[in-house]
């Protein structure tokens, strides 16, 4: 609860540069709260991701910004303008849907021209800007095609061109890459980021893919059950997650429970783990990124002050090409540590006692209250 208050204060007073602001925005369907008192301040030109599991309210939030869903409470402003009660056609926002939503009865060029026609721009200028926009997404050759004659990636780029050609104040993207195959998704990720920076447009990007959020965005808003869990840069969210939920949702983690003893250490089955978090005595949980863990079975690993050590038994080894995964049993729990493959490794057999070690600063610790 304290958490929520802090964000509210931050959004309404701090950050004078904020361009798009959501203040206490909420949405209820009947007695179901899809979005609960959301506060968000996005700077001009920033690319911000709304990240969270399915059903956490990302799309609802985006649609409230676009005006397609009326808010149940709160305020939405862009610059000095209060848009809360403005209908979608008066909001000047570019929207890209997961389904692309291209007009099936119009050619690519007519699709892109639509928003310009709505703004009563002279024909000559429309033609010129449509050409520019299509060139920007490398589709100038396909201007006369119909949407159904395009591949998914091409449709996606038409949707992007259609949204950007009107030079909207905000660009809103709802999982624009989720219908593409992995390779194309990588390509489009870079392309969207490049175009966004080139145009310098304030962008909200909805995704449930943490890699997308981490690799493309300036800041990430992690959402869960209609609430904000954490707002921060990709590095913040990954390295300093505010809650166990964020830690496990963004990036992979191993997870062990133990008991905090009050002086900054956590007891896990006899081994003492230290962390930077000052936890009150009581049940606690630690999380570590699998690739930050070193596995030693020679018994010669040096003890160091800034390194946590935990002993276990190797259960099995999985070879995944780039990496090798060590499944290690620690008490009743099994955790996975990861190491790059080197080519000429001598691998230990299952049943070998091993020592896991990682730096204290890589230890994410949470008390039971979190």
């Amino acid at each position, binding site marked *: 609860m304290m958490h929520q208050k802090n964000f509210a204060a931050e959004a309404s007073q701090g950050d004078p540069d904020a361009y798009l602001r959501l203040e206490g925005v909420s949405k209820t369907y009947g007695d179901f709260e899809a979005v609960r008192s959301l506060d968000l301040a996005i700077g001009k030109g920033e690319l911000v991701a709304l990240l969270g599991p399915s059903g956490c309210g990302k799309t609802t939030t985006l649609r409230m910004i676009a005006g*397609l869903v009326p808010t149940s409470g709160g305020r939405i402003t862009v610059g000095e303008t209060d848009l809360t009660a403005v209908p979608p056609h008066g909001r000047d926002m570019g929207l890209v849907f997961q389904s692309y939503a291209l007009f099936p009865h119009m050619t690519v060029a007519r699709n892109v021209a*639509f928003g310009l026609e709505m703004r009563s721009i002279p024909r000559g200028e429309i033609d010129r800007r449509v050409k520019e926009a299509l060139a920007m997404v490398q589709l100038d050759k396909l201007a006369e095609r119909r949407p*159904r004659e395009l591949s998914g990636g091409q449709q996606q780029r038409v949707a992007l061109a259609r949204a950007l050609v009107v030079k909207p104040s905000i660009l809103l993207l709802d999982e624009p890459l989720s219908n593409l195959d992995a390779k194309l998704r990588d390509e489009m990720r870079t392309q969207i980021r490049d175009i966004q920076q080139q145009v310098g447009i304030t962008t909200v990007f909805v995704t449930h893919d943490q890699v997308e959020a981490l690799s493309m965005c300036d800041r990430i808003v992690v959402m869960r059950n209609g609430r904000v869990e954490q707002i921060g840069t990709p590095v913040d969210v990954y390295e300093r997650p505010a809650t166990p939920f964020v830690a496990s949702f963004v990036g992979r983690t191993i997870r062990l429970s133990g008991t905090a003893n009050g002086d900054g250490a956590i007891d896990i089955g006899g081994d003492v783990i230290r962390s930077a978090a000052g936890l009150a005595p009581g049940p606690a949980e630690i999380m570590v990124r699998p690739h930050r863990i070193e596995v030693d079975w020679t018994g010669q690993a040096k003890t160091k002050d800034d390194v946590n050590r935990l002993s276990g038994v190797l259960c099995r080894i999985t070879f995944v090409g780039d990496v090798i995964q060590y499944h290690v049993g620690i008490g009743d729990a099994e955790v996975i540590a990861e190491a790059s493959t080197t080519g000429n490794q001598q691998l230990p057999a299952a049943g070998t006692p091993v020592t896991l070690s990682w730096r204290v600063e890589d230890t994410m610790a949470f008390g039971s209250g979190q």
Partner: protein
Amino acid sequence: MEMHRTSLPMGILVTLLFLFLLAPVLLVFPISFSGDQILAFPPSSWSLRWYSALASNTVMISAFSTSFVLAAIVTALSLLIAVPAAYAIVRLKTAGSEFLFNLFTAPLLLPTIVLGLAILIVFASIGLLATFHGLVIAHLVVTLPYALRVLAVSLGAANMACEEAASSLGAKPLTVFRRVTLPMMTPGIVAATALCFLVSFDEVVITLFLTGPRLTTLPVELFNHVERRADPLVASVSVLLIIVTLAVVLIVDRSMGLTKTFVEKK
């Protein structure tokens, strides 16, 4: 797409079935060129006399034009009512829209003869019998359910996100409807047009109750004619009916093709 290859026996079977179903209809064509006084197959001589008889039969001609104008007006009115109604039901989901939809489409489930009797009773008491606008209203009762069904389905299949995209691009609600919703519904509108026209043009059961000596439709006149005499005139009228019907079916078929071009790849 994989080509469907039908085996020879299957092909023959299907052809025979079609011939069986269509034989009565196909018979009408040779009979309409009969030179005989009475309806018989095969005709003993050939001529165009029954076509010229049709051309000079003012009752048939006026019944045809009544039917045609009636069908056209009924179709136009059906669309004018069903397009907004489908929009209200599918898109706006206004309160009670579900009830409205069921009410509108209920006549589809009633035996037509019962519907005809009911309309007869009501129209008799308010003086709408044997009037043109009475016929229009009665036919609307039959065509509206079809129009509404077809349009509701076609609107339901259209991606609503397209309309949202249009409005976020600055289009006001009416512009969105005109430039995006309506074009996306085109195949449905064409199909509904054809269906309404055919249903009205062919309608006999209800119309029989409502027509009189001064006002009659082609199917009803055909029915009356057969009751009075058995000459091959009915065959030439039937050919006329078939040609109009085929023209309309062709439009429907074209619109199905249109549907395929419009529907998005999933």
